[in-house]
């Protein structure tokens, strides 16, 4: 047989993993025990981090990449993909995570940004990246840098879904505008939203983002998760919403089912019964701008 050439870390392979996560729930976990609960509930992946966003919010200080030992512990505990967060622009945290064999990196505004001008050039890496976005321009800038998956930023750690809804609605509106624009108008739109022209062109032709788009930031209930699917998200990240609630195992399972069957309201009503208290949360409308995380990222 002729020698077969094997290629790793390609765009197709990186985008491919994101495609496989669609219709699934990715859960924040801070230790191997939580990771096992998440896997048992049916999570498609876990996000290993030291503190869930609501604790980062409450405790303040600088939020950094997690301890490698903790990440390794979680990698050993589960067979599903393990993701981890790097600070915006922190090339070295990303390289460390890649060296640890992490399956996906979230260059995340939830951690304290390391660079206030530049994001990581994600196309330099073999490991796939996901990034947050509030609108189409921001999403396409991240994709231009090499992100193979986008998520709404929402407002992490609040348990308030309003910002995530705002972000997906805004992305959808922006996409509709691009789709209905003439080819002659595309360059000016690209300039206006600060997005690479070639990617704007792709959005016009596909009628959607060229990569998978998940919901994140404020999902606390099965109905929240299903709402984001209804609005066109491909899947859902749940951060503090699960392990800051009364019954994480049951709630996690209910959210997984609500996402898979998001059109089936009777089923979602059924799985929403008796979940106990959801995370306490705080209303974004009452927060001061300085306390909001979503503004981080450029």
């Amino acid at each position: 047989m002729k020698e077969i050439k094997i290629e790793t870390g390609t765009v197709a392979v990186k985008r491919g993993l994101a495609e496989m996560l669609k219709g699934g729930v990715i859960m924040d976990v801070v230790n191997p025990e939580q990771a096992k609960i998440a896997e048992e509930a049916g999570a498609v992946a876990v996000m290993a981090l030291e503190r869930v966003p609501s604790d980062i919010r409450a405790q303040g200080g600088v939020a950094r990449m997690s301890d490698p030992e903790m990440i390794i512990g979680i990698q050993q505990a589960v067979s599903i993909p393990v993701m981890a967060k790097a600070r915006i622009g922190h090339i070295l945290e990303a390289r460390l995570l890649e060296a640890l064999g992490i399956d996906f990196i979230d260059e995340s505004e939830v951690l304290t940004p390391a660079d206030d001008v530049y994001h990581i050039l994600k196309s330099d890496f073999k490991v796939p990246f996901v990034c947050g976005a509030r609108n189409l321009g921001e999403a396409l800038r991240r994709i231009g840098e090499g992100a193979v998956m986008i998520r709404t930023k929402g407002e992490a750690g609040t348990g308030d879904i309003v910002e995530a809804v705002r972000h997906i609605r805004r992305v959808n509106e922006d996409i509709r505008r691009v789709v209905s624009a003439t080819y002659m108008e595309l360059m000016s739109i690209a300039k206006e939203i600060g997005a690479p022209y070639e990617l704007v062109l792709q959005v016009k032709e596909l009628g959607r983002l060229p990569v998978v788009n998940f919901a994140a930031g404020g999902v606390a209930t099965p109905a929240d998760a299903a709402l984001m699917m209804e609005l066109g998200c491909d899947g859902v990240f749940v951060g503090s919403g699960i392990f800051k609630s009364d019954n994480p195992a049951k709630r996690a399972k209910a959210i997984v089912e609500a996402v898979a069957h998001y059109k089936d309201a009777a089923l979602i009503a059924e799985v929403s019964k008796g979940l106990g208290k959801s995370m306490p949360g705080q209303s974004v409308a009452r927060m001061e701008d300085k306390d909001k995380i979503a503004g981080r990222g450029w």
Partner: protein
Amino acid sequence: MVSGMKVGILALQGAIREHRKSLHRLGVETVDVLNPQDLKGINALILPGGESTTTGKLMLRYGLLEAIARAGSQGLPILGTCTGLILLSKHINHSNQHRLGLMDTYVERNAFGRQLESFEAEMPVPVLGEKPFHTVFIRAPYIEKADEGVEVLLRYQGKILFAKQDNLLATAFHPELTDDTRVHEYFLQLINQD
């Protein structure tokens, strides 16, 4: 060949859209399968790539695992890609996860390693014709060995990556991630055999 044919796609999680696109390109009507009643009237079923533990649990909860296992053992053609290959297998090394258990195969999950070891390559697959098939492997499994009755369609470095057993077809790679529809076409031929 394909007029009036209806193929179900297990639509709980994973690369559903991609399989739909491949089949629509071939002029085949598709049905999303979320509940056992969705299996009615389909001529074949696809189990897409995704996360096998998630899919297995969701199938169990609403009676799909049992219903699909029954349909498969009664001759419904089923194509399983990646996660689908795992679910079709009777034996999964180091795992007691839920499965259909229809093929006499022994599967190793995440067999090539983590995502960094995911890869793409041109592989010769004689049954699909002379032109090699562009295979994409994402945290892929492989079939370590298979009992009698399983036809090996692609073997690479001793690992079985594409196999057929009667009405069941399984790939360790993702034909739905490419524009090449030859695996789907080969699968649709299984419908005509009945």
